């Protein structure tokens, strides 16, 4: 992370921390929410990342893209072992589909909900890989760097998630077809 930051340092004048946070808070929280699937965890992750960033704002603000840097901090915070350990203490509901596909034009919405629900069931790193790939639209090389793994592993995370998603959606389509028949 330090190496990335050092390489990315291009700005000469530091940004004002408060102004920057005001501007970027929504984007950071949205990203964190997509990453964690939980509003409280998202707030915690963003707050922790901003605290870390604040402590070395002089360097962070000179980076080429401070937002990307702070997002990396959010990802790191989310997949850190102690955070996963802490989350074990707060059990969540079993993942269920939040909406049923019906034939009145809300199928797309139902599918979207099904994908969201499935993402909630993915392991942390797999989910992070999916979010970074399809929400942040990063390359596998960038994802691998962020998740501290090989590019092939990052690719594998995404493909496993896709396979699971496809299986779920296919079985649901089958169920709906049977119900409609």
């Amino acid at each position, binding site marked *: 992370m330090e190496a990335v930051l050092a390489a990315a340092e291009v700005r000469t004048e530091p940004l004002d921390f408060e102004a920057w946070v*005001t501007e970027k808070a929504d984007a950071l929280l949205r990203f964190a929410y997509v990453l964690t699937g939980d509003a409280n965890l998202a707030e915690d992750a963003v707050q922790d990342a*901003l605290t870390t960033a*604040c402590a070395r704002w002089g360097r962070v603000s000179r980076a080429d893209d401070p937002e990307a840097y702070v997002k990396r901090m959010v990802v790191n915070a989310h997949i850190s072992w102690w955070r996963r350990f802490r989350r074990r203490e707060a059990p969540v509901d079993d993942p269920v589909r939040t909406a049923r596909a019906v034939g009145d034009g809300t199928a797309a919405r139902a599918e979207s909900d099904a994908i969201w629900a499935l*993402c909630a069931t993915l392991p942390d790193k797999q989910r992070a890989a999916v979010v970074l790939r399809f929400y942040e639209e990063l390359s596998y090389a960038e994802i691998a760097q962020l998740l501290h793994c090989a590019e092939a592993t990052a690719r594998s995370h995404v493909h496993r998630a*896709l396979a699971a*998603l496809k299986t779920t959606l296919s079985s649901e389509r089958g169920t709906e077809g049977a119900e409609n028949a």
Partner: protein
Amino acid sequence: MPEHDPERELGPKITSALQGHADTQGMQATDLAREARRRVHRRRQGMSVAAAAVLVAAAVGGVWSVMGNDSPVATSHSDSAGEGKAVAPERTSQGIQPNAAENTACPAQHPIQQVAGPSDVPTGTGLDLNTPVAGLTACRYSTGQSGLLGQMQFDGAVAQQVVDAIKVLPERNPELPVFKCAPQVTKPSEAIALRFATASGVKEIWVVYDGCTDAGFFTGTHTYGLFSAPLKLFMKDSVRPSGGTYLSALKDW
């Protein structure tokens, strides 16, 4: 038939689903910066406090080490104590905690009042003379009704001098007379319990100098003959007896 690519097929759907659910409703977007600054400030304060605590601990450890390395050999300070000035038990020797010395205070009643033979020191209470000592309270008791006759505290240096002076002594002093006495005067009229502060608690040496059967320093496991050199170190003020059967035979106590 074109190759099926799940990423191309499902990717847009996932992107759409994630973007559709990415809202910040219910999340607190304000005060993030202020809270971050507050946490950084608190973290730095915590680190400062921790650093200060480490410095204090190191300083205390250094002082403790210096105190613990005090030589048991007489110094000007211990000399003055040896001249009879009762000293507070704040000085330590060999790193023994100072509060250990506080526990050496003389009890109102002591087993030495009942018996005073070499084997009468209760098991486990006698001092191993190779044990470092941090302080000493000399307790002079009457074996009659009077109880505690006098007491005096000495610092670690004097305590160690007393131990060092005793442990070189032979089992008995050949210069002392051997008495044939009546049973009523067999038992000493008084005796002194030397209560030493050690790392394992208070340990004692009994000093018997009266009566007519035994005389010397008793640890329970060893008996050392009665000689004047150790006596001169602690027989001061109220701990100094007016006389004793065997003391009369020691000229320079």
